[in-house]
């Protein structure tokens, strides 16, 4: 591995890292990946990995969950109650999305 591998992974994982941290991560990752690499030595023969994943359905009924809509809305990073109210016009709730383009 080298620094550009770390940069590539950080880009894929959407993590901003400082130069210093990239170097530290490179060192740590080499150690950890070096350790886990020992699984190479295991002969797995023709065993298949188990993925016990299957669909489980429930009745499509309302009110299965109790949750607070207010708490969710309050926590949108840009939500501000006063502004929400002034623009909501009636009982709909307006969510302001950050202008980033």
């Amino acid at each position, binding site marked *: 591995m080298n620094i550009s591998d770390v940069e590539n992974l950080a880009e894929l994982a959407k*993590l901003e*890292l400082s130069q210093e941290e990239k170097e530290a991560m490179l060192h*740590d990752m080499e150690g*950890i990946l070096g350790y886990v690499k020992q699984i190479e030595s295991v002969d797995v023969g023709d*065993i298949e990995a188990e993925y016990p994943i299957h669909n489980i359905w429930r009745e499509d009924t309302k009110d299965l969950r109790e949750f607070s809509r207010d708490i969710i809305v309050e926590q949108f*990073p840009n939500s501000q109650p006063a502004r929400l109210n002034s623009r909501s016009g009636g009982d709909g709730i307006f969510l302001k999305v950050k202008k980033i383009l």
Partner: protein
Amino acid sequence: MIDLKNLTIKKARQALDAKEFSAVELAQAYLDEINSKNKELNVYLEVFDDVLEQAKSADERIAKGESSPLLGIPLAIKDNILICGKTFSSASIILQNYVASYDATVIVKLKKQGAIFLGRTNMDDSAMGGSTENSAYGVTKNPHDTSRVAGGSSGGSIVAVASDMALGALGSDTGGSVREPAAFCGIVGMKPTYGRVSRYGLMALGSSLDCIGPAAKNVEDTEIILNAISGSDILDSTTITDTTYPKVSMKKEITIGVPWDLVNAKGVDEKVKENFKYSMEKLQSLGCKVVDISIKNIDMALAVYYIIMPAEASTNLSRIDGMRYGYSADGKTFWDVYKNSRGKGFGKEVRRRILIGTYVLSAGYYDAYYGKAQKIRAMLKQEFAKAFEAVDFIATPTIPFVAWKIGEKTDPLSMYLADIFTITANIVGVPAISIPSGFSEVEGLPAQAGKKLPLGIQFMASHGAEEMLFEIGKKFESIKDNQE
């Protein structure tokens, strides 16, 4: 004065029902204890302001003649389990001001029983770590020696119980995060069968490994908490029912298998081995048969774990983006907001594991790492199933060494090695319990610790066989000189 030191959930239940003390009095006793100890030990990230109100309504229910095992019992809850209306940070920066908008299923169940939630407890950031040193809010200290770690990631919940700041607690266990700190601090901690307890409302780390687990002072109390929180849940499709796994019963002569190769591996402290051997002799004297078992590739479990867990963690944490909730950092473009929020909001160990997970899942490496690890996992499952045909339990020490000094382990890999005995149960999905097995003398400990630090023994049983674990656990506890 209520004698908190010798109080158990069972005794408290009897005293509450007999009106020897009220739930309010009991809760107040714990609040006083928290008040005097929390600053030093750093157990609770928040003590709830409605504890006495909760206790008051428990008293009202008791006055009406109601009783349930946990009615009025004060519990500590790990900060990665949602309680509606309460802050939920997962001990991270990225969720520091997040307020839960619903109750986790375990919380719903505990509320129905009338349990009291004292507060939310410290942990490693996003449950990643084995010492709580990764918490964004400071390390939780070991009550036996405050210069040492409590273990983790459920360190706060465990110390709450170990230092009389709660009567019982909930943690979560992905690779040993309940059992390892329980052993470090001298209490009982359990990881149930995968799917036994609903994870709806638990922050996901490694979804094929995560379990919510109880911690308490003894096996009986642990059983009471597990019974209160277990059960299938329509909101968690991985939950199991009583018939998911065939019922197993104990052999006529209780048989305990020990993978001695692993116990005697390099890196396991001599005093831990001695203590474990002594425990096995004691069990033999109680009539248990102890046999040597060999589980092929059990020595690979740690490597398998540190591929699968980061892979799943990096996937799970991709939902946290600084856009919809949690910490949000500024940036010029959409992706800058994303990257800055995640880069600054996640702790270092979390960022490290996200990178590792991204690496082992990336095209070109997937087959060699994640794919291969899943195959070894399948082999290990078969090996365990085979082993459990011959034995009732598999026993190991819980921890390979005693709690380390805060800041001593700077290399992440050396910390990962603490999980060597606990991770296998998560990989194969079987239940496991850690029980105090005595102490190890350690030089240079402060006088208050009595020169000793706790050790633990771990029992694993077949899928669905928690009851058997409680049975062997109570048997083991009956050996009096364990605590000497």
